[in-house]
């Protein structure tokens, strides 16, 4: 049987999040006036987004993706490389690439499981060298986003379900697989594998990790060590 390493993205491998990604597209609309309007909307909504994220990741995603309403898919795809270079690449944590390389070298199949949108993911996945991606998609009508997402939303329990489905289809042994995430919303995803790692954890996830005896990894610090199961396997 094969084994896989499942990675969350925002907050885990880089410090950006869905809001900064959305803000980039908003401020790069077709004309200056549209950009200003969209950006003002984002700024006004930030407290709402923060509050929603604390309550429910699902609700947060639903509201955030509604902001894309009216945007042309061509533009979202066409600006993705620029978004990556301007916003995402500089926010990659120092040890993120090393971790991904390590799991690949140890024979794990690297899979990105994220709530981020498909067009944003492409340059990131290519940069890190992910083989497979499980992510969210917007709903479009005649190439224009209508503010909805395509179900099921990749978040919380759905991430764990997609991982199990992936494991079944690809003959992956989940007991031998590992997962990395920063958020307590991903506890189901982390619990689905044999080797969960709380990566740059939020306060809530840190508490859970300590309770469950999960290793804690800080990719923000170059001096932090990888969890023992990766080091031991590498030593072998």
């Amino acid at each position, binding site marked *: 049987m094969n084994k896989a390493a499942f990675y969350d993205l925002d907050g885990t491998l880089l410090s950006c999040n869905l809001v900064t990604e959305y803000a980039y597209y908003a401020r790069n609309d077709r004309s200056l006036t549209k950009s200003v309007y969209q950006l003002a909307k984002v700024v006004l909504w930030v407290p709402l987004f923060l509050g929603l994220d604390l309550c429910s990741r699902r609700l947060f995603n639903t509201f955030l993706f509604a902001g894309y309403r009216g945007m042309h*898919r061509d533009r979202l795809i066409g600006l993705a490389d620029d978004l990556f270079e*301007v916003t995402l690449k500089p926010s990659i944590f120092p040890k993120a690439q090393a971790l991904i390389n390590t799991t690949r070298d140890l024979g794990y199949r690297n899979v990105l499981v994220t709530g981020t949108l498909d067009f944003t993911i492409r340059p990131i996945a290519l940069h890190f060298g992910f083989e497979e991606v499980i992510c969210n998609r917007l*709903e*479009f009508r005649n190439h224009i986003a209508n503010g909805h997402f395509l179900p099921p939303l990749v978040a919380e329990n759905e991430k764990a379900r997609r991982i199990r489905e992936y494991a079944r289809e690809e003959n992956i042994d989940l007991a031998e697989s590992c997962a990395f995430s920063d958020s307590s919303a991903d506890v189901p995803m982390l619990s689905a594998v044999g080797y969960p790692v709380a990566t740059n954890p939020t306060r809530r996830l840190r508490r859970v990790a300590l309770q469950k005896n999960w290793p804690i990894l800080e990719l923000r610090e170059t001096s932090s060590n990888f969890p023992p199961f990766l080091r031991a396997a590498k030593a072998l």
Partner: protein
Amino acid sequence: MKSRTAWQWDPVRGEYQAGQPAPAQGTGEISAVSAFADKTVLLLGGTGFVGKVLLALVLDRFPELKHLVVQVRRKKTMSGEQRFYSDILQSPPLRPTVARVGGENVVRRKVQIVEGDLDQPLCGISPRDIDMLKGKVDIVVNLAGVVDFDPPVNESFETNVYGTQHVIELVRLLNARLVHVSTSYVAGKKNGLVREDVPIEGYFPMRDMQDGRQFSVEKELEWYQRFIAERRNNGSTNSRNTREHLRKAGMDRAESWGWTNTYTYTKSMGEQLIAGTPGLTCAIVRPAIVESSLRFPFAGWNEGFTTSAPLVLMGGQGVKGWPVRDGPLEIIPVDLAAAGILIVTAAVLCGKNKPVYHLASADTNPIALPRLVAFLGMNARYKHKRKRSGNRLANLLKAYVETKVITIKSLQTRRARLHRGLDVIHAMLTLGKTVLGPGKVDPYIKSLRDKRRQIRQQEITVDKFLPFMFHNSFIFETRNIREAAGMLTNEDLKRLQWDPETIDWADYWVNIHTKGIEKWIRPAFPVKG
């Protein structure tokens, strides 16, 4: 990178559809596998952009291939065979394929090289090779041609017209069948749906005007012979002037009949020669504008400077106004074009072919030109935000000023304004030169001259593409190739895909085509500025 999803992008409706598409099913009336396993194919023009991909596709997808003969022109000191193994097989599209199929030895077992040149009688193949090919070659696939839009008329005639005559002679001598690759744009200056069943012989685009003119290849050849003889008698010794005169003569003649350029005019004559040859079993394949590969041998392979590459590179340089109409651009990725040619070859071998096949995309999945202009603009933004050379303010403006669709009138106004501005700068520099002396001002004058030359070059390039972007709106009917693909066996359909209706144009243009041009074309044709 694979994205796991239950949703499939429908590029025509512009929305996602649930579920995966069912695998294509064929009726099995045509079997490419058995056609290629039993027959010998002679490939002419296998060293060009489409030819290399076709060669790679045959080697990769049809290990059963019995025998392939490839005609290669020698180059000065390099024989055709040396050129094939040291040059063609080492090219980016073929190198990975050759490795995948088991290396050069496997290729040597299946492929035979004959030297030749389309401009010569019997395509320049030696009598010894002709004897060897007689009774052996089942089908000739001719991809050779001069594809420049406006070359000197003699270059185009020698290859696209007389060259086709040589191919016909060869095919008749070998008692073989023929697949001749032409271009969809032989339709000339037309609008709307261009059907595949329009009679070929005597065709000229202005025929519908019923001005009493008749078109015949014989008469055109007489005109050409007369014109060349006159040129010889009154020829200028200045080779640059001669070339320009020959170029203009071809374009004028083409336009007088309603063709867009010398290329489409001479290609149409090649087709008419084939259609007028009695007893020839043949099919004419007409690809639209052939662009970067979609999947095979890898996404983004491109070669040469004759497709939309100049426009993409100019867009990257920051050209902000594009005169395009709100219609589709007829493009087809090179791997789909190669697959289409192979499907037609199999159809001809199985005796199930139609006379003409368009290989195009717009009748099933059109990409509107204004969308492409938006892509050019986003590429310009990406590049100018990262540009470290040149004026920073100019780069910033080029990055953030939106690229727009403009009218022809607006294009002309912009051009006139630009040239007036350059004239004023030139006058000021000339004045400065008299006051300050040449030492300080000459470098600026030289730089201005270079800039003017560059702008003029851009204008010429845009003008060349105007028939395809602005003046005419083509949609080429592709019923015949869809029918032929539907007649393949299910095994064939796993190996050859004809599916332009599934192309996600945004992903193709942004992530495949533009990046392919930046990677493969820009280094070979560095553009200043």
